[in-house]
Each structure stands twice: as structure tokens, then as C-alpha cells.
């Protein structure tokens, strides 16, 4: 189940070891991204690219805004 969260919750989860994933294209990620975020563009989300994520830790995904 996917849970929608706000900024406060993001910060709380990060303190607890959550992983951040920006799903925008690399060009936008390279301009600006949240500290420590990985870049896995939506079109490239598959078993191979997500192998770098730890399954036992929370994963937070985001893009620019309400898209």
C-alpha cells in the first residue's frame, strides 16, 4: 500500500533511515534534488534499477509537485 505523506513526515522518515527517490528525468535531478536522493526516472523503474534500494527500509518517491 502506498501512503501519501507531507514534508514533516518526509523529514521524520528520513531521520529513521528512509530512502529518497526522485523519479524525474536526469536533467531535472541534476539541477536540484532533495539531499541524498537517488535518481530513478519513472520510465526506468524496474527490478534492475531498484536493486540499489534496500527493501527493508522505507522508500519515499517524489517529483516536482502534484504530478
Amino acid at each position: 500500500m502506498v501512503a501519501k505523506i507531507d514534508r514533516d513526515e518526509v523529514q521524520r522518515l528520513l531521520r529513521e533511515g528512509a530512502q529518497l527517490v526522485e523519479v524525474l528525468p536526469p536533467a531535472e535531478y541534476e539541477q536540484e534534488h532533495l539531499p541524498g536522493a537517488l535518481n530513478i526516472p519513472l520510465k526506468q523503474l524496474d527490478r534492475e534499477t531498484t536493486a540499489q534500494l534496500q527493501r527493508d527500509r522505507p522508500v519515499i518517491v517524489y517529483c516536482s509537485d502534484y504530478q
Partner: protein
Amino acid sequence: MSPRAAWRLESLGFTKVFHYVAGKADWSASGLPLEGRLASLPTAGGVARRGVLTCRLTDRVGEVRERMATVGDSACVVLNDEGIVMGRLRQKDLNADAEATAESVMESGPTTVRPDLPLADIVERMQRRGVGSVLVTTPDGRLSGILYRRHAEARLTEMENEGAPEEK
């Protein structure tokens, strides 16, 4: 885009998936740090002065006048009980009856800008309109600070001298 990504992760077997709905724009607008090529460029929020004098809608003009004189501020931001910016009081507004409420004499709905807007864009807009200062608020309308044009111009001049990029 990110809702689909969140569900894609879920379909790949991840069980602790969260979707930060408001995303990068919200994070940046709240003045939180970013990383990346453009992250070091100045923004309105980065140069805005914090600790701005505030009052409530029901505060009396006389009280506000005293507080402004004590701290030496030339403006006071009027907030509602939720901390949302409702108006702005300047010196000229405080010539009213001391018993009048802030709400009755304030400039209602003052122009505000988001903290993540590029400083160069804001300064250009302020220069064009002859504005000396502007309130900086978060996307939900809470006060972040006040941006003085002279401070912003000084920051941009510093950057030019340092040879930093100007565009965001």
C-alpha cells in the same frame, strides 16, 4: 508522475512505499536545502530576513506602535490564529486611533513571493514596480521572512563579483 512511480515500486515488491505528494517544489519553498547544480543560486527565501515583527488581527494599533518602536522595525506583519499572513502594517498605518485593531488599518492581502523563487527574478520585478520590500511566504501562506530589495541587490552584486552564474 510520482504516484505512478510509487505504485510501480509497490508492484515490484516494496512494502514500505511513501509518496511525497507536494514534492520538490514544496521542499524548496519551505526553505529546506537542496543539492544539485542550481542549488547554490540565491533564492528569495535565502536572502529574506527572518524574525519579522508580527501581530494578530485583533491587536490594538497602540500596542503594535510601541512594539515597532521598541524593536526598530518599520513594518509589522498581521497573522491570523493559524499563522497565515493576512496583512501588513507600515508606519503610516499606525497614525490611526490607538484603540483601532490591526485588521482595521492594515494593508490587506499584501503581495507575497515564494521562498524558492530565484533572487534575480524577484529583484528585477521589485525594481520594475519600485517596491522596496516584499513578504516571503510558504505555499500554505505562512510567513517565512521579509525580503528587502537593497539586501537582495547587494547579494546579487556580491555574486557578480564572485563570478557565480546568475540564471536559475
